[in-house]
């Protein structure tokens, strides 16, 4: 197990490095630069600025210099705001992470419960209702759903604030974020639950006289969770790193918003830092889901 984790971490470092390199060169290949803005800078100022941020050197040299700083945990400062990037990222991640984690937990729990219910009451009314909503939420784009939520709860019913500093204002974004993954987890759970309920070991457990409730929650559910875990890993990474759409609609200053802003601004160090950060979160989530896999299903050998 430890050996496996060490191996995976080493591999992860390699993939993060590759992502780093690709982003760095692609970013520099795009015409334009951080200082070609509306305000016309004098040639001299521009050169001075470029020299200050090493932008006058050839791209490979810049890359090496960047990596050197990175080794020391130095992401540089934003070309736009001049603030330390690490601080900006961390504060953004706090917002996105809190939002995302809540949404993810909500999605997984409700998804599993609804999915199991749908499987148990297959073709009955409950199942029909659940299927209807899951189809709706997988089909509806999140910007439509988020706008709807806002319209209903904030404008019409006036139940919730559109935006203020209280945690109440996080309710709608969490729901908007969780809708799709909830629907997806529900569908996955239902399918795999139906599959595992039809297995021979369920019949064995019933023949032993185990009560139905225990058969479902002990024997069927654990097997049904295996495919769900595969989905949850990447979903978690995706949702933690912030959703551009939802964050914009609810004007939440999270990672998703930050990422787009940095690209628009050609804020090179900011783009790099966000990309690396997203890559690292992704890799960690995948590793976690692989380990969870092993915990749930003993047949899987991690090597």
């Amino acid at each position, binding site marked *: 197990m430890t050996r496996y984790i060490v191996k995976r971490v080493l591999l992860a470092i390699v993939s993060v490095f590759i992502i780093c390199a690709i982003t760095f060169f692609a970013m520099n290949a795009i015409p334009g630069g951080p200082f070609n803005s509306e305000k016309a800078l004098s040639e001299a100022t521009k050169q001075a600025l470029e020299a200050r941020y090493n932008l006058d050197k050839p791209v490979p040299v810049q890359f090496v210099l960047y990596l050197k700083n990175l080794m020391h945990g130095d992401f540089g400062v934003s070309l736009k705001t001049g603030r330390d990037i690490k601080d900006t990222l961390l504060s953004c991640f706090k917002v996105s992470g809190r939002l995302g984690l809540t949404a993810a937990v909500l999605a997984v729990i409700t998804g599993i419960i609804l999915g199991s219910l749908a499987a148990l009451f297959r073709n009955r009314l409950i199942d029909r209702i659940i299927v209807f909503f899951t189809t709706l939420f997988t089909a509806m784009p999140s910007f439509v759903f988020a706008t709807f939520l806002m319209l209903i709860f904030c404008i019409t019913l006036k139940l919730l604030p559109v935006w203020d500093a209280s945690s109440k204002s996080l309710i709608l974004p969490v729901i908007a974020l969780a809708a799709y993954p909830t629907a997806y987890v529900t569908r996955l759970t239902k399918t795999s639950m139906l599959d595992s309920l039809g297995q021979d*070991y369920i*019949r064995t*457990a*019933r*023949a032993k*006289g*185990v009560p139905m409730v225990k058969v479902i929650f002990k*024997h069927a559910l654990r097997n049904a969770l295996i495919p769900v875990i595969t989905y949850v890993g990447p979903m978690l990474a995706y949702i933690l790193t912030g959703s551009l759409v939802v964050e914009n609609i609810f004007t939440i200053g999270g990672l998703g918003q930050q990422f787009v802003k940095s690209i628009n601004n050609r804020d090179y160090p900011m783009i790099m830092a966000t990309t690396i950060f997203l890559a690292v979160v992704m890799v960690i989530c995948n590793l976690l889901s692989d380990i969870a896999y092993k915990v749930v*299903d003993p047949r899987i050998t991690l090597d």
Partner: protein
Amino acid sequence: MQILDGNGHITQGKVLFKGEDITKYTPKQMEDFRGRHCAMIFQDPMTSLNPVYTVGNQIMEAITTHNKVSKEDARKKAQEMLELVGINDAPRRLKQYPHELSGGMRQRVMIAMALVSEPSILIADEPTTALDVTIQAQILELMMELQKKLGMAIIIVTHDLGVIAQMSDEIVVMYGGRICERGTAEDIFYNPCHEYTKGLLRSIPSVSNMKKKLVPIAGTPINLLNMPKGCAFCARCDNAMKICLTQVPEEVRIDKTHLASCWINIRDNKYLHTEEAEVKA
């Protein structure tokens, strides 16, 4: 046993266990009945154990479902059971997962699990079909040995006539969900009185006529959703008569232990008439 899905239910008749009709049991009573009084083992040991729990966990579950015992006692009992079914190194095996065991081993585990509460009846549904021949013999031997030790009845369901000949005292031959013939092993093997039984016995290859072609029963098994009006076997029976098409054959007594449901016996007057039967019985 009430463990089939919604599409399987009992339409008529009784199932008596120690004088009680278990078809009238509530689901709760059935849960208690299953495993405690009547246990089952299944055809495919590869899929009959839950892959994500250890063997020990599953056996202990069977124990704690019916008895209020501590975890420690349950573990001890589980270990004893594994030893009883001839698995060495029981403490280690308890901690293993089903996929780490061989097929024969898993069927032994299934048997151990079925026998934890010393049931009066063990239903074995094709217990050896998925195993290879040497293992088959071992499992059957084990079952017979345990039967003697624990004094339970075994109901074995199979189409393997060899297994039946070896295991059974009494035999019920069924086709299309209906009873064709019942009697002692001797009755069935030496004096088959139903065309289906005769066909089955003809189809066994024997050592003495190895070179001859196998004699199959013509046709395909019957569709249970579309049963004929008369004898279930009539479409494949060489000796079918007119009456076979329209009327379900009555069960008649061939002798004291032997009953059959085939019109041929009635045509040939090869049965005991009521008074005679009473006298003999």
